[in-house]
């Protein structure tokens, strides 16, 4: 090959080339579309088939969470005779998922419970994200805060979080908002410390030092230098928030904290596990499957979004 090319070059044969000339149009024309960050994100995201599948699953779960109890609502029986008659029924046309060991319609309580759990997860994730971003940004920028916050994180990480949450829940009156409070108290620490590490790394990179030397305003540094590099890290941490909130809720319900009138997914699962799931596997199967679908779909979609938002993966 090499010798062939060398021969052509050496031959100085003008017939091999033709002059095309210049045209104003071709100079102005761009061969590739202009790079846009968010367009590349969407393009990358929609290339990932499983992520789209997860998005569809999330949409289905949210649809049923809103409309599920409207489509089929069987109120839970109150008197013991009704409970004895209705308990542990197999799935049928009246009870689509069957009934639980307490005679409740599993379809109804699953979607009522997921209404509580998803709302809890959504609200506490939003609060955690806002607090985590603000604290993490300050933490990365103000050096004096560093030792205090590191010591604080060490202390909190050394006590099992479940124990702190349990002690707090016993202090507060168990309700929706007290659960939100408990989840938001230390939930942002992971995001904040991740932000802090990334900001310190990016601050010392050559391009940022160059931009600082050239006199960029701190607003420009934050928007153009820091944020595009931080987005994927933030999304990656945030993608774990909804599943971890749901799983913490399930763990807290193991201790029967809430009063029995409020249905949550954690309560549905733990009640099923206390019942006769050996003889009636559907009582445990349906709540477990729905919980799995919700958490896996959110988690995977978050991961795919984190991949897509990483500017290094853009073409």
């Amino acid at each position, binding site marked *: 090959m090499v010798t062939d090319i060398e021969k052509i070059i050496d031959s100085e044969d003008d017939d091999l080339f033709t002059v095309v000339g210049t045209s104003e149009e071709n100079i102005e024309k761009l061969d590739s579309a202009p790079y846009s960050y968010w367009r590349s994100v969407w393009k990358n995201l929609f290339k990932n088939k499983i992520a789209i599948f997860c998005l569809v699953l999330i949409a289905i779960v949210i649809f049923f969470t809103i409309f599920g109890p409207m489509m089929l609502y069987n109120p839970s029986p109150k008197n013991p005779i009704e409970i004895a008659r209705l308990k542990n029924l197999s799935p049928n046309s009246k009870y689509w998922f069957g009934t639980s060991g307490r005679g409740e319609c599993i379809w109804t309580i699953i979607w009522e419970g997921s209404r509580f759990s998803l709302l809890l997860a959504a609200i506490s994730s939003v609060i955690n994200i806002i607090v985590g971003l603000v604290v993490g940004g300050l933490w990365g920028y103000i050096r004096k805060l560093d030792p205090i916050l590191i010591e604080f994180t060490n202390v909190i990480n*050394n006590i099992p979080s*479940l124990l702190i949450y349990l*002690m707090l829940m016993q202090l507060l009156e168990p309700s929706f908002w007290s659960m939100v409070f408990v989840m938001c108290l230390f939930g942002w620490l992971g995001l904040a410390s991740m932000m802090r590490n990334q900001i310190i790394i990016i601050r010392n990179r050559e391009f940022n030092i160059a931009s600082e030397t050239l006199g960029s305003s701190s607003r420009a540094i934050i928007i153009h230098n820091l944020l595009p590099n931080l987005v994927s890290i933030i999304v990656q941490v945030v993608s774990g928030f909804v599943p971890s909130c749901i799983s913490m809720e399930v763990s807290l319900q193991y201790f029967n904290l809430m009063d029995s009138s409020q249905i949550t997914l954690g309560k549905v699962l*733990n009640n099923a*596990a206390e019942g006769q799931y*050996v003889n009636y596997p559907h009582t445990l199967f349906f709540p477990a499957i729905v919980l799995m679908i919700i958490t896996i779909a959110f*988690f995977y979609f978050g991961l795919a979004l984190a991949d897509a938002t990483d500017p290094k993966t853009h073409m």
Partner: protein
Amino acid sequence: MGTMILGYTIIALIVCLVVFVILVNHNIIMKSDNCVRRFITNPLTYYSLKRIGSSLISIMLAVAITFVLLRSNKNFHAVFCTGWLDKFPNDAKDFTCNVYLSNLGLKEMYYNCDPTSESCEASFRDVPMIVQLLKYYYNILPFPKEVCMQLSYEVDEATNVGEWVCANSEWTLFDLGVSSAYRKGVAITKIVAQTMPVSFRWGIWAILLDTMLGYPLGIFMAKYKDRFIDKLGKAYIIVLDSIPGLVYYYVLLVFFSTVLHWKTIYNPDDPMTLLPPVLTTAFAGMTGTAYWVRRYMLNEFSSDYVKFARAKGLSENRILFIHILRNAIVPLSRSFVTSIIACLIGSFFIENIYNIGGFGGILISALNAEDYTMVQGLVVITAIISVVSYLISDISMAIADPRISFTADE
């Protein structure tokens, strides 16, 4: 009293030592070069002392947080006096309860004297929280002291007045007080000493199995990156990481009990009953192990020494197992040490589901029984164990790995 003085002397000595080390390191005293100075200014010593200092602060803060959290519960005092007081006449209940609380160090007796009638009557007041906290710090300071191991209630037949007396006291290092509800009157150190080996016995198997499964999975995932086994492993990791722990435990419990027909109640004499908790823990734990093995190995793949080894014509397997794995294993050995020590604590849910009377299991029982002194003691032990395990792994890593530098600024 003697032990009190000894304890404070030890605290004073430690403080003096710390001040001395700091002063020497900042070139304020002992400027001449001698062996003591050389030992203290050695970065390894200074680093270790600094880590020990910050771990002590962590433990003290953790104790303070649980102290405040537990004591701000509005029926904190009431739970100590429920249940066992029923056999007393109504007018004696309050007094007996107060005597018990002062035995636990929550209240103190004082004499309320009326100057006009010159009569004094005993009444009780709360001990300030800060005093309780300082006393607790003193109690958990590890040096030998005489600790009451069994508190029992004895009624004097003649006067019909009962009081809490110490039935049996021993010399131990820690004093965490006595349990107030779960096993009333028994010293918490004793309960911990009984349950920790139980947790450790099954936990160590789980850690071994986790390592034996996680390392090969991680190695193969790194070796065949983006091939089928890597995708399968990734899917496994994502699924187990995202689903709530309890869902996973219940699903495996159902699988073990209905499909495999295994006994799911733990019995220390029957090794088959060890399998369900060990497998449950190992399958969940190996996701983390495999993930980090894969990640560290992929980091090493692009390093210069691997390219050099390839250029010299070494076989891929030799590079993978001899060169890359050895370097990748260094940061992982640290988490191995930590997780072995964490075995002492066990798992809250698994021990409860499979009925293992281990450390994590009794923590939940204590919470359910509202045994606050015990919860406090167990949280303190948990915090101490996790801090100490990080400390040990950090310092042993610093000694073992020559690449670690001690000064963050360089």
